[in-house]
């Protein structure tokens, strides 16, 4: 009996959905747009999070020592830094290593190589590269290093410039996220209104059937549920169209994004999590549709 009831309800909802093609196209179109904005917002979040994470990885504290600093002082300072709360690792680059690295980086530059040959001795400084468990801890770590007893052997602590760049990017990223969220909310509201109006039209056109259903003691399920099914169908089809547009568009755009922002594989992200995004899109679409129908039913069908 339940199967039969469900079949009838679904059949009525389906007939309502396909009855008026212009209205169906319009309603589904608006919902598709909302879901596309929603998916684009997720893509934008992914891109900005990837960039911010990559940059955060680059954040570190580099402690440059004076060329006159003694080896024991450097070792002591390294050991002290390792004990500071929040420090993940401390890498040491000796003066000789720094010179080797410099020569390798500029192997193709005749001018730099000639200049180096002219200099007596090694002009480069030894350094410690400090990485934290969390970027929020760098400030405290830098302050602790400033207070070290061998601070006089330290030439400079390079941290604050990097932090400003990261904070700026985080601000831009949060701004984009907030605008994206506002747009999604506003468009969702519009989609709900449009779908609400469509369901209202269907209810109006079926006034007579609804009246008779109520008269003959039709259950609330039979009277109301077909409209919920209709709303869900708008959402499901909108989800389908949104995915059919979004994935090819992302496949096309992803290499271009990667050229601008190396290391950002947007399509890979959506491909790797394809099932989750498919379910999410269909769920979001049908929830929007069902919600719109629900408020139309409450407003226009009284038992």
């Amino acid at each position: 009996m339940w199967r039969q009831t469900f079949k009838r309800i679904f059949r009525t909802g389906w007939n309502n959905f396909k009855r008026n093609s212009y209205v169906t196209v319009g309603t589904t179109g608006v919902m598709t747009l909302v879901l596309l904005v929603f998916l684009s917002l997720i893509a934008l979040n992914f891109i900005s999070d990837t960039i911010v994470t990559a940059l955060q990885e680059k954040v570190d504290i580099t402690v440059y020592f004076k060329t006159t600093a003694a080896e024991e002082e450097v070792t002591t300072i390294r050991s002290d830094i390792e004990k500071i709360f929040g420090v993940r690792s401390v890498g040491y680059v000796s003066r000789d290593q720094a010179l080797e690295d410099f020569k390798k980086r500029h192997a193709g530059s005749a001018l730099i190589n000639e200049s180096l040959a002219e200099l007596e001795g090694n002009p480069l400084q030894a350094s410690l590269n400090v990485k934290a468990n969390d970027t929020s801890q760098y400030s405290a770590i830098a302050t602790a290093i400033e207070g070290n007893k061998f601070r006089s052997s330290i030439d400079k602590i390079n941290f604050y410039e990097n932090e400003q760049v990261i904070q700026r990017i985080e601000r831009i990223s949060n701004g984009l996220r907030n605008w994206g969220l506002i747009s999604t909310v506003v468009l969702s509201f519009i989609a709900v209104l449009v779908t609400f109006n469509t369901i209202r039209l269907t209810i109006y056109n079926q006034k007579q059937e609804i009246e008779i259903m109520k008269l003959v003691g039709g259950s609330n399920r039979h009277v109301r549920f077909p409209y919920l099914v209709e709303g869900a169908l708008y959402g499901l089809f909108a989800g389908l169209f949104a995915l059919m547009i979004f994935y090819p568009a992302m496949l096309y755009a992803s290499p271009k994004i990667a050229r601008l922002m190396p290391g950002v594989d947007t399509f890979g992200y959506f491909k790797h999590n394809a099932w989750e995004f498919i379910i999410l899109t269909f769920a979001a679409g049908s929830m929007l549709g069902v919600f719109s129908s629900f408020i139309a039913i409450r407003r226009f069908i009284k038992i």
Partner: protein
Amino acid sequence: MIEIKNVSTAYDNDIEVLDKISLDIKDGEFVSIVGPAGAGKSTLLKLLTRELRPTNGEVVVDGVNLAEISSREVPLLRRKIGTVFQDFKLLASKNAFENVAFALEVVGATGDEIDNDVPKVLAIVGLNDKIDSFPHQLSGGEKQRLAIARALIHRPRIILADEPTGNLDLVNSYDVLKLLMKINELGTTVIMVTHNRDLVNTVGRRVVTMEKGHIVRDQVESGKYII
């Protein structure tokens, strides 16, 4: 069966349509309700199906106070009450079988139940040869008989007929009346609102006269149409 106790009803604009009316209808009675337009006759019927709620007083149908039932129980109440209207309220896009079957589909009946019950009830009203006909292919009398068939499909305890012969000629009117009387003989309570004096006098049963929201006369036996 039906107890209307001191009921008053006003519509949204606060115009009182029924004013402290009381009426008891026993199981199996045939009651004609007569009166001029605006007397509150149709409003009384709407109270019995919980389409309207009284502003004061109580309506009890088959032992159930209608003010105490939830909206989920209202469909169950309406399945005990068959309704027939002047404008038939048939679905033009469905044939005779489908119009009656519709009443079973919306209560979750199975295909077998529908195939079994619908032809039987169409036979009761004399429409077994019109099973595939659409409403526009039926005469006025046939349409009303089809509406009665739909009203009967749930085997209701009560039939409410609001001007059932309003759009019919004399012959068809009497056919419909005979059918309602036959249904009443089988034990169903029938409450008929009508302006048709000849029908009321032909029935010769209880006649309740209403005027301006009051019951002005209640002829329990051998009632006549008196305004």
